[in-house]
């Protein structure tokens, strides 16, 4: 599964994207955020406040309770500031 990061999430994690193999038991977006946060200091730093992180699965916004089965691409980013 491909993970993509934007803005300060990307800067803090230190890379724009990566392919990951998820361990068993990671079913929802919230599970994914919790697992990622445990992967090292840079992830801990980026995902310190998981509630503020916005998530898109296959380029559509989703909530943190969304199931991630079947996702090709999951993006994590801060609240948007376009317009």
């Amino acid at each position, binding site marked *: 599964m491909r993970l993509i990061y*934007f803005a300060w999430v990307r800067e803090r994690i230190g890379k724009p994207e990566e392919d990951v193999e998820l361990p068993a038991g990671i079913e929802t977006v919230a599970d994914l955020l919790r697992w990622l946060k445990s992967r090292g200091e840079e992830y801990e730093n980026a995902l310190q406040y998981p509630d503020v992180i916005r998530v898109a699965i296959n380029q559509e916004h989703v909530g943190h309770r969304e199931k991630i089965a079947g996702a090709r691409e999951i993006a994590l980013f801060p609240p948007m500031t376009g317009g």
Partner: protein
Amino acid sequence: MAGAVVPAIRVQREDFDVAAEIAALTGGRADIGAVVTFSGLCRDEAGTLSALELEHYPGMAEAEIGRIAAEAVQRWPLQGLTVIHRHGKIVPGENIVLVVAASAHRQAAFEAANFLMDYLKSRAPFWKKEHRADSSEGGWVEAKEADDEAADRWKKSDE
């Protein structure tokens, strides 16, 4: 013709020409009675800002603006709709975003343009980073709660 409006959506590095975009919507037809345009520009924050860097999510940016535009076309009787959002480094005075909404009457055009901007601000995947005029490191612009509230007011009562 009802339901036939296909919004024109562009996410691009280059600048745009507001007059040319209006002409593209209205040229060769006589049924449009109202055109509302909104242009968002980069401001210099009283001389402290030298540029904004706009990061975006390629693919999703177009798709999300498309979803918002499709909803606008459903909710208001529009005869044309154009949305352009720039990315990359933009200096004060330059354009960032454009919405052009055309309709038979002004109310639909005003409301659709307003709705589009409120939703673009809180849902289109763009992020602004500041470059400061004094060369100190600028930060990421923080999302404003007021922008979320502005988008929420368009929610229908059954949502």
